[in-house]
């Protein structure tokens, strides 16, 4: 667990405990806190905002019902992402091909998206479209959400070895398809300065 994870998880546990007693303010706080990351996570499964909202609400509906059953074996974020993952897969099965859209219409992309971010998104989408759904999810959970292999295995309810294999194959594919890095990327040395 990262040092930064500890206080965040403690806060989540308090909110969950309050939810188990019927505190809707705690539910709203947790909902707002997770909305952004769940949107991004679920956007790796579907591009439809209505389905994403539906899955997020299903996820928090379950979290509201099961808050008292949370045993604390994992971080709250791992627990919630696991629920969202299963709700997302269920929604994909129910909506079928309707859930898949190739691209986001212009009017749905964030208006304040700077050129650099747009370039990064394009670069990323070229790579992700070559991955299977499971591989995309693993990459999102590791690189986007910062989860460990154990966390990802818990979320996807599969062995750690399976997660390792998915991550490995995803990285090999990305390495083969992503275009050459632009000049001016963060250097290794700069990055190492941040490593404790």
């Amino acid at each position: 667990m990262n040092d930064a994870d500890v206080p965040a998880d403690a806060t989540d546990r308090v909110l969950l405990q309050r939810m188990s007693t019927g505190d809707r303010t705690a539910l709203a706080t947790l909902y707002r806190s997770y909305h952004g990351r769940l949107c991004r996570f679920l956007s790796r499964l579907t591009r439809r905002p209505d389905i994403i909202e539906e899955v997020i609400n299903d996820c928090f509906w379950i979290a509201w019902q099961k808050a008292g059953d949370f045993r604390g074996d994992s971080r709250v974020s791992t627990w919630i992402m696991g629920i969202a993952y299963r709700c997302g897969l269920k929604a994909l099965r129910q909506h079928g091909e309707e859930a898949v859209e190739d691209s986001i219409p212009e009017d749905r992309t964030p208006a304040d998206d700077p050129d650099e971010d747009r370039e990064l998104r394009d670069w990323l989408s070229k790579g992700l479209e070559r991955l299977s759904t499971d591989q995309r999810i693993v990459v999102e959970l590791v690189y986007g959400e910062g989860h460990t292999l154990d966390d990802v295995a818990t979320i996807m309810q599969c062995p750690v070895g399976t997660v390792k294999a998915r991550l490995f194959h995803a990285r090999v594919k990305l390495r083969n398809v992503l275009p050459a890095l632009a000049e001016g990327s963060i250097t290794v040395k700069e990055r190492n300065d941040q490593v404790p």
Partner: protein
Amino acid sequence: MLATYFGQDCPRAWEMMPWVLQNRATKKQADWLASHLAQCEACRTEFAQQQRLQQAMSLPSEVEVDAEAGLQRLLGRLDTPAAEEPKRTRAGGWLTRALVAAILIQAIGIGALGLKMWSTDQTASYRTLSQEEPAPATSGTLRVVPDASMTLGDWNALLHSLQLQVVGGPNDVGAYTLAPVSAKSIKPNTLQQLRAARGIRLAEPVTGAP
């Protein structure tokens, strides 16, 4: 062109990269990776790509979903009395719906057919030419051919005395089918009395066999 891996340390470096990026690696591990990257161009390229991947994955979702509107809908769902397992407003794809419709139509058809068969008389409403004419249900049924000279009065008197009644006929050869008036009126010697009576040319019991 992609760089290739040559060194024995490259697989270890490859495996370590995501966790160094997540700041989950120890300082010793991070230092080791840094020293490896300093001398391995392929891993350096890969690590730079990993950094860019992490940066791209950390961007906010490009699909915009209104958090407050979603939260209000969720709170509204909690207030719904029948709120149970999350339900979808839309069922599965068109294929699923078509299959369900086909199964329903089949079930309705089978049900209607079964109802019709159940309500219909079990006896077949047709008879083949080789089939025997259905025998009267009452036992003691006889087939009798009266003489052409026999008067209607004698015929009626004979039937009355033997407590018989006409239940069929005359057929093509002038035979009548007689049956006892009631089950109590069956007498064992009725056939002999008929044969002995005047004006009766033929009297035979009706049996199932041809």
